[in-house]
């Protein structure tokens, strides 16, 4: 029987003996991590929605009409736009395409377009970006281009969207931090209670000549076990609940694309397990410190 198996035996022996405390600690860890995990899932989903909104920011570059740019000029420009690293895609809309779209928009009363002679509409590029925040910089590059008539990217709307989304992100981060602190306090407090009940035991161990770490290891193992099991149960509940709820929301709001895959299941599980294990181990190790001064 080596040292490690002795510690394991001690740890699981006292988990069983103090089963009431074990259950209390497990429930505390479980509930705290369910709440934390719920918020984490909410943040991921919200973030994906925010990103979707941001993706709607697009630059429309209208080209000159008198004279119209030559096909060589437009294809050269298309190549140039696509060479910029910020650009995700660029679609050339020719004069004919533009007119076609207009006809499509007014197909219920086509007589409005009857008065048109020729095609007065400009050709354009519709540029969408990898990082929507770079919209200002990219739009500025079209200034002074001889074949560009005007650049339109809804600056005010874009700015408004960005300020709202960044505020929302900050709020969510603060929320997560607060909840993390609450979870840490709650769990370490429960663990401290269970240690307090074994104060005498720790004192005797010290008097017999045990070093601090000799006493601490079984407690840390207990903490890791409680943290891991509580967090694992919580992770299962959170993720099952998430896919259920997202399914319901999708059914109820078909026009709003709620990304079900917004939540990285593996990452969230790892985060929750890590939080549980670390808080469990640290809670035991630190909670014990007071009683080790014998």
């Amino acid at each position, binding site marked *: 029987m080596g040292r490690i198996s002795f510690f394991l035996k001690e740890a699981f022996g006292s988990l069983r003996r103090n089963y009431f405390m074990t259950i209390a600690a497990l429930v505390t860890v479980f509930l705290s991590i369910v709440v934390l995990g719920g918020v984490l899932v909410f943040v991921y989903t919200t973030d994906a929605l925010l990103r979707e909104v941001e993706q709607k920011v697009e630059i429309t570059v209208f080209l000159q009409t008198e004279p119209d740019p030559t096909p060589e000029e437009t294809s050269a420009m298309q190549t140039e736009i696509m060479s910029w690293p910020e650009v995700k895609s660029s679609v050339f809309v020719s004069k004919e395409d533009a007119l076609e779209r207009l006809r499509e928009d007014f197909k219920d009363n086509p007589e409005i377009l009857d008065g048109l002679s020729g095609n007065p509409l400009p050709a354009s590029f519709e540029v969408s970006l990898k990082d929507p925040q770079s919209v200002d910089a990219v739009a500025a590059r079209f200034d002074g281009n001889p074949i560009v008539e005007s650049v339109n990217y809804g600056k005010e709307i874009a700015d408004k969207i960005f300020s709202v989304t960044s505020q929302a992100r900050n709020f969510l981060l603060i929320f997560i931090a607060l909840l993390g602190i609450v979870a840490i306090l709650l769990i370490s407090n429960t663990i401290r209670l269970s240690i307090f009940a074994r104060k005498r035991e720790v*004192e*005797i161990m010290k*008097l017999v*000549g045990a070093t*601090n770490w000799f006493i601490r290891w079984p407690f840390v193992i207990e903490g890791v076990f409680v943290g891991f099991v509580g967090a694992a149960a919580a992770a299962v509940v959170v993720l099952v609940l998430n896919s259920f709820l997202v399914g319901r929301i999708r059914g109820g709001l078909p026009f709003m694309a709620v990304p079900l895959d917004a939540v990285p299941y593996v990452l969230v599980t790892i985060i929750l397990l890590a939080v549980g294990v670390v808080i469990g181990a640290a809670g035991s190790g630190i909670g014990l410190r007071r009683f080790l001064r014998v």
Partner: protein
Amino acid sequence: MAVGGRDLATLRSWKVPYLRRNIGCVFQDFKLLTNKTAFDNVLYALVVTGQATGASKKKAAEILSLVGLGHKASSYPNELSGGEQQRVSIARAFVNHPPLLIADEPTGNLDPDTSMGIMQLLYRINKTGTTVLMATHDREMVDRMRRRVIALDAGKVVRDQKRGGYGED
């Protein structure tokens, strides 16, 4: 103040456990681990020092027989009488064969007959060469043992006698 050649005032706190292993301690309230059997209580003092457990199990069993509790090795402290619990705690204190054994009123909670048995046990331990330092208020016991007596009053040594009795002047 120095114990075992080490100055307690300057002793680093992480070294304290190693000093304690060289001092057996017996207390008035036994201080046994209630969730461990008599055998495991004795064994714990050995495991703590990191000794190989095959040999230490044998050692723990031997020492329990020596204090007359071989048949109660698997009993828990709450299944033992006061005298028996004190024997277990003496077995635990002595299992490492420390040069010094400190007994703080070891008979304080026990009746006179049981006390006598405990004193005989301590006497035998003393015979093996271990110094036994015992604090007590038990007049009869001191008078009967006739060993070196150091009397303290308000923390000061007021008497140190080779073969003393209780309350002599």
